[in-house]
């Protein structure tokens, strides 16, 4: 049976093309070509083409309803594409072999709650075909990774929402995956839990495991992702290496105490303002931690960090009182908002 499938659906030759890896034999971790999903007349995902090189952390971003979950459901075989195809680790979508080395945390993490944590993981390990002898070690390992060692014998019904999400992550890692797809893995987690998940993701990358991360928590994505794609209404609007997407776009965040209009004008003629509140003491001043004391935060576009001394000099010369001068890359949030808003305009 399995042998027959193997003959019928050979791995895609193009997928064998190297994605920056030596040898040229490692297939892309995820590749899609014109993937599309319609629900009735509603197009949830429109002709999506993605390429995720192996060993990278890939951030898949988009506003609510953009089609992120629908896309990953098509990748893992829960939803049938209306059109288009894709490959996971070189195997066509829908092929059970594509899912042998795949770990998936669903957006809706609901499990059989009558199972004990270790029993639940044992069951999922068995679905991956992990030999019985090895399961115990694996279970202990992923429980520790998910920070649930103490709850191994507890029934899932007694778990809190965040703990269920953690066991969901453990479940995604139990089969020794080469590719891990996480659909909003931190939606129910506390700040410590979020940091834990970031650590897990980094550790996976160290081991060469590809992580496909669905999220709209941009700060989180910014911290761990090598590459991102931003989708909106089912279409990719940006795709590329994170560093390149936000490169060349530096800005200086300038915190000024009671700046005179003349000074502001002088600054903004030399460095275009990326963002300036109309009046002093708006919400932006809170950002700098100086609440309600008339500190104004101006964000100026600069080429690189070598311009910072000139800004300081200009402020001092203009009689301004400088509280803070922080260089920033253009944030992913800026990129995100810009990409999505441009489309909606």
């Amino acid at each position: 049976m399995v042998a027959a499938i193997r003959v019928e659906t050979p791995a895609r030759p193009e997928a064998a093309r190297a994605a920056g890896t030596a040898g040229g034999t490692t297939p892309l971790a995820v590749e899609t070509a014109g993937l599309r999903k319609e629900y009735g007349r509603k197009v949830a995902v429109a002709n999506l083409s993605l390429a995720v090189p192996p060993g990278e952390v890939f951030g898949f971003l988009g506003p609510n309803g953009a089609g992120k979950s629908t896309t990953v459901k098509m990748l893992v075989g829960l939803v049938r594409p209306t059109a288009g195809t894709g490959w996971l680790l070189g195997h066509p979508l829908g092929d059970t072999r594509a899912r042998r080395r795949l770990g998936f945390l669903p957006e809706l993490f609901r499990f059989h709650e009558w199972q004990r944590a270790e029993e639940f993981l044992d069951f999922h390990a068995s679905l991956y075909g992990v030999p019985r002898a090895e399961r115990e070690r694996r279970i202990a390992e992923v429980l520790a990774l998910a920070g649930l060692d103490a709850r191994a014998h507890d029934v899932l019904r007694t778990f809190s929402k965040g703990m269920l999400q953690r066991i969901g992550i453990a479940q995604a890692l139990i089969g020794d995956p080469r590719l891990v797809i996480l659909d909003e893995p931190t939606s129910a987690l506390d700040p410590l839990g979020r940091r834990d998940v970031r650590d897990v993701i980094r550790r996976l990358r160290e081991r060469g495991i590809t992580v496909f991360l669905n999220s709209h928590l941009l700060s989180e994505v910014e911290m761990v992702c090598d590459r991102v794609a931003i989708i909106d209404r089912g279409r990719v609007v940006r795709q590329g290496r994170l560093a390149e997407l936000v490169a060349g776009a530096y800005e200086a965040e300038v915190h000024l105490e009671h700046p005179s209009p003349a000074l502001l004008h002088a600054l903004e003629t030399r460095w275009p303002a990326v963002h300036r509140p109309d009046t002093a003491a708006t919400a932006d001043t809170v950002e700098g931690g100086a609440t309600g004391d008339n500190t104004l935060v101006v964000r100026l576009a600069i080429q690189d960090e070598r311009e910072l001394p000139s800004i300081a000099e200009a402020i001092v010369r203009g009689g301004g009182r400088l509280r803070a001068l922080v260089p920033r890359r253009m944030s992913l949030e800026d990129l995100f908002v810009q990409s999505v808003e441009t489309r909606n305009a």
Partner: protein
Amino acid sequence: MNTLRIANLTFREAVRRKALYGAIALTLAILAVYAWGTGWAVNEIYTQTPRGAIVRLALQSGVDVRLLAVGELLLAGLFAVSNIAGLLAIFLAAGTIAQEIEQGTLHSILCKPIARWQVVLGKWLGGSAMLSVYVAVTASATVAIIYWHAGYVPSNLPLGIALLTLKAMLLFSVTMIGSAFAPAIATGIAMFIVYVAANVAGMVEQIGVAAEIEAMVRTGIVASLILPSDALWKMSASAVQPPNPLPALGIKLSVGPFGVVEPPSVWMGVYAALYTAAALGLTTLIFSRRDV
């Protein structure tokens, strides 16, 4: 292997969530009442002079009326077991795929290297195992009660129980078809209606046989082709009831409301088994195309 894992999961879920225990416990409670009533009835049958015109007529023709009465008591108990098992099958199967999709518990299973047919077959095997336990326990208890009170042992008990189990498995697989695309409640209600209709059609057939009205008989046969659940009950009843003396007298009547005059042929059993397999195939076909 994955199929058996799903079967095991389904079975254990029923045990752990106490669905199976509850059903068995409640049925045993009913059977306790049954045992009490049967004791009374058997006592009356064996110690008092039978009254009633038909019974006197039968006694004159040398028929063992007492044995027939005991047989009828047994069939009454098994009729209850058969119908409870049937409804249990319907309501368990109605939720088996639909609810798991609704709750999302299938998401983390279907993304594993497992095929949809394995999930369908596994769930059916798990459900069937559960129903087998139920039928075996409750039918055996019924037979034991009759044996205890009246000393009657059915001629072919294993076949009778096997056919009751097949009936439950059949209903489970047919209901799974609905569960693969419709909400649990809709499927449950629809199958309940179909099941009752099939039972009624079976009665119509019995009456048709007795009154020798061909159209009624044909109606019943068509109904058993549409859903052979009542046919399986009739085959099962005929395997456990005492020999019916009436046909020999030229009367095509069963002994009581639960008995059978002309049991369906063995081919109906084969048909029911194929029907069950086909229902599983159709469930797989529908479920494989379904978005989860």
